């Protein structure tokens, strides 16, 4: 099993959700996060006082999937989240040891 994690631009979230739905993803965890990479923050000025706002708001989504589905899902996110400008975000895949469905106690692939 794999955990696919993506950090994307907030306004691309709806496109990514639809792309994932199209390849059969039925659920995911989404959080509002902030951070920075090559896309730096910005400057705001209040009565002449400049503030450097370092952090940029992003959406982080996590999907736990079968090993064989991971590549399709990464591809769907990559296509749907891309604008071609700095700040499009990142996708990474990490191995998952155990998954448990809390309601039924199902384990691993049964629980996905």
């Amino acid at each position, binding site marked *: 099993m794999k955990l696919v994690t993506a950090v994307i631009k907030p306004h691309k979230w709806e496109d990514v959700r639809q792309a994932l739905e199209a390849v059969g993803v039925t659920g995911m965890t989404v959080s509002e996060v902030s951070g920075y990479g090559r896309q730096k923050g910005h400057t705001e*000025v*209040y*009565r*002449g*006082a400049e503030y450097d706002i370092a952090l940029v708001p992003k959406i982080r989504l996590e999907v736990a999937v079968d090993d064989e589905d991971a590549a399709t899902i990464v591809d769907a996110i990559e296509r749907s989240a891309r604008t071609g400008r700095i700040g499009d975000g990142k996708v990474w895949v990490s191995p998952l040891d155990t998954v448990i469905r809390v309601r039924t106690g199902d384990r691993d692939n049964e629980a996905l």
Partner: protein
Amino acid sequence: MDGYYAFMLIATALVLMMTVPALALFYGGMTRSKSVLNMMMMSYVAAAIVGILYVAIGWSMGWSGDGTFFADPFAMAWLKDVEPTFYIGVMFQMTFAIITCALISGAVADRMKFSAWVLFIPVWAVIVYFPLAHMVFSCSESALICTRIGAQDYAGGTAVHINAGVAALVLVLLLGKRIGWPKDKMRPHNLTLTMLGAGMLWFGWYGFNVGSIVIGYDPTDPSAFELERFVAETGRTFANTTLATMAAILGWLLIERLMHGKATSLGAASGIVAGLVAITPAAGAVDIEGAVAIGAIAGAVCAWAVGLKFRLGYDDSLDVVGVHLVGGIIGTVLIGVFSTADGAGGIDGLLYGGGLGSLGDQSLGVLVAVLYSGILTAVIALAIKYTLGLRLDEDDEVGGIDLAEHGESAYDLHPGSFSSGGSTGVLAKSTVRTEEGAQA
């Protein structure tokens, strides 16, 4: 004339609205979210304290008779011998005392003990505001600024704005900088509140400036009322107040655009207040060209002056000095340049061939107000600093003054998180009325 009385009722309510809630909103939006309730409370509690104190001795100190600095504080204490037909005049002056005290609060945001504020306000009102109001507004035979110096001040450039601005400067010098200032981020947490507050201040300011008309009105002899003069003078002050404010918005935005690249909403809100402050003393003295000039100058200069605190190193949190002291001085001094003989003061300024006389009187009036307010505010603040203490504990300041001084948070921004009750807290045991508790 019945209309005059109705007008004063409305003007008085408008000026009270400038403090509660307009100024509280204007300042509250500019603080950080952990300090907004304390910021607003400083205005609300100033209204309560100063209002009662004004009736107790403020009116008497201002208006019970003659005096260079103030009149007999006890001759009309608790409005003794004041006819109810004159109460609205008392209430009108009371609202000025309230807002002058409340204006100071913007400078000391985030860090002044609430108890110190509650002590400072009444002492400052009695020792500084009530006398200055007498010197400027009463125009009794030997009143220092109005009569002896002969400086014009229609609605309070000296007694209200310069006074509050100087007091703010003295207080922040004795109080010290906020922890982390100027390095840490202290950007305004809700500029929509500030925009709303600035708009309401503008609306309320018509009560402040237009209501400041001094005209004889004897309820027992209504026919003596000078209707034509009343209409002409209120028309002039209303127009001047409006046009100066508009010019100040543009002046502020222009300077901001040139110096910092963008015209901002906070700049527009600040321009409104800077223009209103500057036209306050001059509302009756100048014509509409003069009002536009004073507004534009005040907007532009104040937009620059709010940056002085970073260069000189005083933490005037919400720019009471940069807007009220600087704007008040501009408006009061420029009367000497732009006033016209057909205005309320009957004096031509420098630009209209009146020479330097008025400019000198106006400048001397400013100097006296600055010295009087500065010296006595320092005495009061030092006395509190070395007894009760002015400054909040370091931990409380970092954690937020709302929680430390009032036990409240302004916003519950994450209802539902970490609890089932639809909010981020649960009622404490001491509050929940249980069966056992009810029986006990």
